[in-house]
């Protein structure tokens, strides 16, 4: 079994080397795998500074990890030949957050659709290309006559984002990395766009990596979830389990911080006070905000433990019953 896309112990520091005290760690020891035989939707949830954007860029090969490797079909991303690289670019597509910045204002929106068709030689003639493009637009619920020929500023944010999904579709990828695809889109349109992504997964077997800060949409859309806190994985696993019965104190905090539409108005109430244990050089990064922190949390980083068949947690309150295991995170996603 060759894994399609794999991250092995990826760590990324910015500014200075591994030992430089002035450097910031954006991502630490992250492992992950996608098996093309089992397409799924994985949500990566975190706040700003959690490392989720860095993760997206590392997986897309836009940024090289400081240590660790990213493998595409078993080969290191940064050691691919020209042809292999072209395959990679076609196979792993991206949708970005800003539905305006991704369009070159000089060209009509057709440009974002015709360019990949031309570059990856998806069609043999202009008519064939046009057909492919119109099909892709219809697949995301847009009418080609309303979209083609227009300039980006003439379309709404939701339309622009859907065109980006259509673009990703054109290339028939196996994986789509969607980095906050709906956070700049109106609430009423989010469902449609996320629905398209779900449809792509179910009907075309495309794996989706959905990166967001919005736990609620992550719950609705994804099968698996990875919760990041300041460059580390706090908790990961089956989305129903993680959201309904969160084990990591940070996940619990995230869930209770979401304001719900309900007549129960507890959201503004006093929150449990953090223990305020000072963070150490090593140790759990959540220690200063954690309401249940223990002295060991200050000194020893919590290992990722498999607490259920489909869940891992990095917290000293949930030690691994079977002892420390390597690569639990990646393993969990590819095992049945």
């Amino acid at each position, binding site marked *: 079994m060759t894994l399609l896309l794999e991250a092995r112990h990826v760590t990324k520091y910015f500014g200075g080397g591994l030992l430089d005290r002035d450097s910031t760690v954006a991502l630490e020891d992250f492992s992950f795998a996608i098996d093309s035989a089992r397409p799924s939707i994985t949500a990566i949830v975190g706040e700003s500074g959690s490392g989720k954007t860095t993760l997206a860029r590392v997986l897309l090969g*836009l940024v090289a990890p400081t240590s660790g490797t990213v493998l595409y079909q078993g080969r290191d991303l940064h050691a691919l030949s020209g042809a292999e690289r*072209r395959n990679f670019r076609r196979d792993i597509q*991206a949708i*970005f957050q800003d539905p305006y910045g991704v369009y070159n*204002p000089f060209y009509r929106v057709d440009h*974002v659709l015709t360019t990949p068709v031309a570059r*990856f030689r998806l069609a043999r003639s202009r008519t064939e290309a046009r057909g492919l493009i119109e099909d892709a637009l219809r697949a995301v619920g847009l009418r080609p006559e309303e979209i083609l020929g227009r300039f980006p500023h003439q379309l709404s944010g939701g339309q622009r984002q859907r065109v980006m999904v259509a673009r990703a579709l054109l290339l028939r990828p196996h994986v789509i990395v969607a980095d906050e695809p709906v956070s700049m889109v109106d609430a009423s349109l989010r469902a449609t766009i996320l629905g398209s992504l779900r449809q792509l997964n179910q009907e075309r077997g495309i794996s989706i990596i959905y990166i967001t800060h919005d736990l609620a949409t992550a719950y609705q859309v994804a099968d698996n979830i990875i919760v990041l806190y300041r460059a580390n994985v706090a908790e990961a696993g089956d989305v129903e389990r993680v959201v309904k019965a969160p084990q990591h104190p940070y996940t619990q905090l995230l869930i209770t911080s979401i304001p719900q539409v309900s007549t129960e108005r507890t959201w503004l109430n006093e929150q449990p006070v953090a223990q305020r244990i000072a963070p150490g050089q090593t140790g759990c990064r959540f220690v200063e905000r954690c309401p249940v922190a223990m002295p060991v949390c200050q000194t020893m980083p919590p290992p990722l433990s498999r607490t259920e068949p489909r869940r891992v947690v990095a917290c000293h309150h949930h030690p691994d019953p079977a002892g420390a295991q390597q690569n639990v995170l990646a393993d969990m996603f590819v095992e049945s």
Partner: protein
Amino acid sequence: MFSYLRRNKSLAVGVVLLSLLALFIIVGNLTVDTELARPLSVRALQPPSWEHPFGTDRQGRDLLAAMVAGTPLTLKIGFIAGFLGVGIGTVLAFIAGYYRGITDTLIRGIADIGLTVPGLLVLIVIAVSVRGGLTVNQMAIVVASLAWLNPTRTIRSQVLTLRERGYVEVARLNGMSGPEIILREMMPNLLPYLAATLVNAVSAAILASIGLEVLGLGPLESPTLGMTLYWINFNAAILNGWWWWWTAPIVIILMVFLGLFFLTVGLDEIANPRLRQSA
């Protein structure tokens, strides 16, 4: 087009001034005998009359002919130097701004050092070292040698901004190479800015060339605007009361610079909202 000119007054003024100049040059070259711009062609020091509408100078040049022949020469120097300067500057700016790294540090370093050295001084030194004086074309090259410094810096900053745009990232994900991205994605968005920079560079080049000529370092036989000013100085025309001699070139120089200035302002107005749109 015309409705836009009505809204962008600076552009309109610039276009009008430069069109008048162009008209003057074109019609002038068709009607006036430019041979009369040579010295000893006509009676010297005649005030304006029907025969010599701009009068004549001390060396026997018909001043109308001199203006008609000389203005395009001055402009030519400006255009050649300006285009060369911005052309080189653009290439260097894109290489430095897009690829960053050591090439960027080098290019930026040279440009920065160059910018601190007083330009006119360098030009004087170069001009003086050339044996036998400069021709018009050589003037253009001399001025161009320094004209690329400022454009490199300013265009580089624009490239740095554009580089971070989402669509550039998407282009990289499409597997486009650096030069492709520069030409197809970035350059079109910079065109208004480049146009404004070009007009600016032309203006600066003309100023530099006039500066050199006034000092007597220009092509002595040509009736360029700067050389005319040199002869005016040399012959103390102002003190001697030969007002017609210095009125014409000054008016024309004013029109050139004001025209180019308003054109720059007008183009800036086009450039900025465009850049904001892509921001």
